């Protein structure tokens, strides 16, 4: 059972990270770390489907741990 759970964790984790990477690449380089600028970027990030796909898969990885 453990190898199967590990396999699920690896696949879910890696694909989740790839989705997050794709989403953040579309946002562009974050260079302003002022709280208001970060909130503005966060508002843009939550509108991206890739982010939600990435976070969902990451949470599956966490659940399988």
């Amino acid at each position, binding site marked *: 059972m453990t190898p199967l759970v590990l396999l699920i964790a690896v696949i879910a984790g890696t694909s989740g*990270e*790839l989705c*997050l*990477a794709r*989403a*953040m*690449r579309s*946002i*562009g*380089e*974050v*260079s*302003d*770390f002022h709280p208001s600028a970060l909130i503005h*970027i966060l508002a*843009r*990030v939550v509108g991206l489907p890739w*982010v939600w796909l990435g*976070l969902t898969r*990451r949470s599956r990885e*966490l659940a399988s*741990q």
Partner: protein
Amino acid sequence: MTRVPGRHIKTFVSILIMIVLGPLGNVLLRKGMQDITVPATWMALAAHVLSSGTIWLGIACLTGYVFAEMLVLSWADYSYVQPVAASAYGVAAVLGHVMLGEDVSRLRWLGIGVICLGVLMVGRTSSRTTEVRRA
């Protein structure tokens, strides 16, 4: 690839945050779950989990980890960030030993050392190999 001033420092700081908060969050979650006795119902389990300060602290650490990861991925390569962030396995071993009382064998330390050697090799490469636009 053009060199952007400050990118090296913000990459280092973001990955450092990931390396500390990731394992710390996982250890706190494990410690929080270990403290919970197995309840009879799912509702009772949820109530125990939601009332645990350790678990909430673990969740906060993992949330910080995800934010740092997302920020660094906005300017650095995925193929750079993930291998370099693997140095968190060393932090995980230390935290597992100190906070959870786990016995980390020499062979396990050797394996972690090999990982850290790989991290050093990846860390010597450029963090960005493609053009990146400003947010």
